[in-house]
């Protein structure tokens, strides 16, 4: 185990969570390579090999579009997330492969808080000009039941 790699992946995960939780969504696509895969699916869909996601992007530009749509187009009640992200389990090969458990608490504008999602990030991470970025992040939610809507990325 390379302690420095573990540290760098943990920092990447922290920055990812902060971008979303602190509403710096515009910076979120920059954590991905230009050609990347971002998908939100569920454990049941993942196990059955179903390819479709709740969110599916195969380019950084599609992530930029997601943020633009959330800012400009989509209607949803004001809400925020709090990510609690666990320790990544790494496998280092040509890419770095990481599996990291997460929990997301959602707080609505009226103060209602819910355990909105729990699951695991299945990542491939790659060096990109001295920075680690996601080549692929598959968000596998433990539950296939989504309350009301999933607007902000997980």
């Amino acid at each position, binding site marked *: 185990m390379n302690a420095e790699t573990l540290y760098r992946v943990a920092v990447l995960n922290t920055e990812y969570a902060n971008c979303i939780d602190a509403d710096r969504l515009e910076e979120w696509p920059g954590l991905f390579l230009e050609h990347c895969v971002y998908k939100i699916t*569920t454990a049941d869909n993942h196990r059955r090999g179903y390819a479709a996601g709740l969110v599916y992007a195969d380019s950084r*530009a599609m992530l930029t*579009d997601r943020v633009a749509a959330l800012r400009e187009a989509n209607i949803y009640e004001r809400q925020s997330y709090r990510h609690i992200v666990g320790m990544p389990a790494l496998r280092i090969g040509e890419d770095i492969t990481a599996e990291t458990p997460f929990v997301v608490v959602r707080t609505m504008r009226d103060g209602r808080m819910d355990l909105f999602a729990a699951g695991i990030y299945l990542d491939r991470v790659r060096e990109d000009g001295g920075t680690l970025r996601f080549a692929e992040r598959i968000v596998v939610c433990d539950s296939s039941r989504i309350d009301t809507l999933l607007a902000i990325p997980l």
Partner: protein
Amino acid sequence: MDAVVGRTWPAGLTRVPYWVYTDADVLALEQKRVFEGPVWNYLCLEIDLPDIGDYRTTFVGTMPVVVARAEDGALCAFENRCAHRGALICLDDSGSVKDFQCVYHSWRYDLRGNLRSIAFSRGVNGKGGMPADFDMSCHGPRKLSVTTFCGMVFGTLSPDAPEFETWLGPEIVGRVRRVFGNRRLEVIGRFTQALPNNWKLYFENVRDTYHASLLHLFFATFRITRLSSGGGVLVSETGEHHASTTLAPPQGKDSSYQGLRSDKEGFRLADPSLLGMHDEFHDDIQLQILSIFPGFVLQQVHNALAVRQIVPRGVDATDLNWTYLGFGDDTPELRAHRLKQNNLVGPAGYVSMEDGAVGGFVQRGIAAAADELSVIEMGGAGAETQETRATEASVRGFWKAYRAHMDL
């Protein structure tokens, strides 16, 4: 006035009282008169049950149901409730079995839902056990009649349900066949969206052609659907079913949305590969939303295909079960395009996410308005097919059918 509900409904189809979304008595009556009435409820897909012994659990309204493929290959459906003490017979979403055994006291059922054996029915050492004259054939979960259409399985509890395709009518039948043809279906995703509202608010939303391009900015901005595009809404004679269509958009500048929130000319996608349409239906329909009373939706938004099942969970809670579909003969390019276009639909869909929330806005808005009325008057007072989507004809059609079934 209905003796059970104890409320009156104003004359005509243009006013709907809000108590219909908030009364617990109404929900109980809907189970009897609508879901268990002479209608066909969507249960699952045929491909969910390819082999003998395969089963899938589903719902008819609030009633839990098992669908299974019996020894002779026939599809059978029965209430998921043990005849003994009422426990669920089947606990998982799907699987494959030789027979079903209730976990509570091991009462055993065959694949058709017939009670076949009772544990310790003769007691132990000559003591206890069931009465000698207990007739297993008189005890069992309620059974449904089952029919299949275009790879989908529908079921009814009523002996009075019309023949399925006659019930849909030739136009709706044609609109379903237009999407499915004879192609082999393939499931590419399954998700459940928990809606914080009465089931009828979602079904109305599906049939509400007026809201689509007003609530959903994404639609209007990219001209996926605008009321000024061609198309219309088809409503079946009884009002039970509908199909709305949007044709390819007119070229050139369209000023009909000027000043509306959903008109944002400056908004463009950085990766427009999400848009566009592979010509798989060989017509000029870009978008077709079709509903079958009381809780089924077939969606074609460009190449994003899904069936949606509406399951009431309480007066103000509804599960929307999404099954995303492709076909066995999809080219890799078409399949990749479907995966991208699924971003438009589902719980996180650029379009559909808002439909998940707006029913809750109504449910909360009417908290103290049981005796007030909603206004459903766009496009007149009738429930006939119209060659425009700037109408609420299809919503009125739903209420026409609903009131006939409910006797309200």
